[in-house]
């Protein structure tokens, strides 16, 4: 829902970096979007296209990969993916903050970020 403002920040960061390095053109950007963010990759791509029009980023390729959600158990030190619960009314299983191994509570250690990994530019 807030892809517009987040993508604006992404484009500003890339633009800052490109200007700093006196780039003539940006050709490719790699982005990781965490599974636990509320950013829809398709909408980010849409906004990216709109916001980079008429800039040195125009036409550049935006590669988006998903950052997997990751939790850590405070009790048994399990590290890995969420425990999901299947519910008949749900289309997709529901993630929980329960440890898949020992059922005590876990903390989220990955999947909440949106990171610009790298930028390809012609200098």
């Amino acid at each position, binding site marked *: *829902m*807030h892809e517009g*403002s*987040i993508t604006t*920040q*992404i484009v500003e*960061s890339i633009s800052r*970096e490109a200007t*700093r*390095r006196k*780039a*003539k053109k940006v*050709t490719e950007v790699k982005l990781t979007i965490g599974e*636990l*963010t*509320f950013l829809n990759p398709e909408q980010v791509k849409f906004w990216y296209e709109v916001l980079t029009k008429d800039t040195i980023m125009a036409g550049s390729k935006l590669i988006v990969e998903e950052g997997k959600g990751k939790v850590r158990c405070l009790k048994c030190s399990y590290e890995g993916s969420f425990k999901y*619960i299947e*519910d008949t*009314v*749900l289309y997709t299983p*529901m*993630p*929980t*903050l*329960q440890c898949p191994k020992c059922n*005590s*509570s876990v903390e*989220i250690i990955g999947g*909440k*970020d*949106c*990171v*610009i*990994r*790298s*930028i*390809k*530019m*012609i*200098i």
Partner: protein
Amino acid sequence: MSKPLGDVVKADEGEVFDIELEENILRANQKIADENRDLLRKHGVTAIDIMGSIGAGKTSLIEKLVELLKNRYRIAAFKGDLTTTIDAEMIRRHGVEVVAINTGKECHLDANLIKKAVQRLDLNSLDLLLIENVGNLICPAEFPLGSEKRIVVVSVTEGPYMIVKHPFIFMDAQVVAINKVDLATAMGVELNKLKNDVAEVNPKTEVVFTNCRTGEGVQEVVEALGL
């Protein structure tokens, strides 16, 4: 965050460079949120972020909290939800300062908006800051504000599946108020099922049943928030 220019070997004209950046976009909000928390703590102000759908009962809960707590704490409120009805009357009656925050088209408050709004307050004459977030069960979870605690208000009129359909916001809340308990029977909603759903998603969250029209359960909310 970015690498210094020095690591680039001098380029020929038109050469392609692949530059690693590793810049975390959402971290910017987190950083300001941390600064807000530090500033508020330094002045002994506890901020509570109140989240939930439009109509869940966020404003009603704030009014009841103010009634219960106004003799113990000096209180201010932020309203980010522009549909809210915390009004001048309330300010006059309870001596609570209210700052409206215009989020424009955004679906959530963010730490920078809170930072600006906090500048309008005299933190030395304040103990408690109640922040009504924008009515939305999804986006506010992504933007910590710098509050000590986050509470989600859900009402039974949102139906029996609203928790399992929006699990993420409950992962970020220390307290959940299941509101409008007076309408549970009429809505055919099983209160303990809702409580159980919250416990499944986040075993650490405290669940309180409330009626924010009568004030039933609001004392338990106060205790759950550690106020």
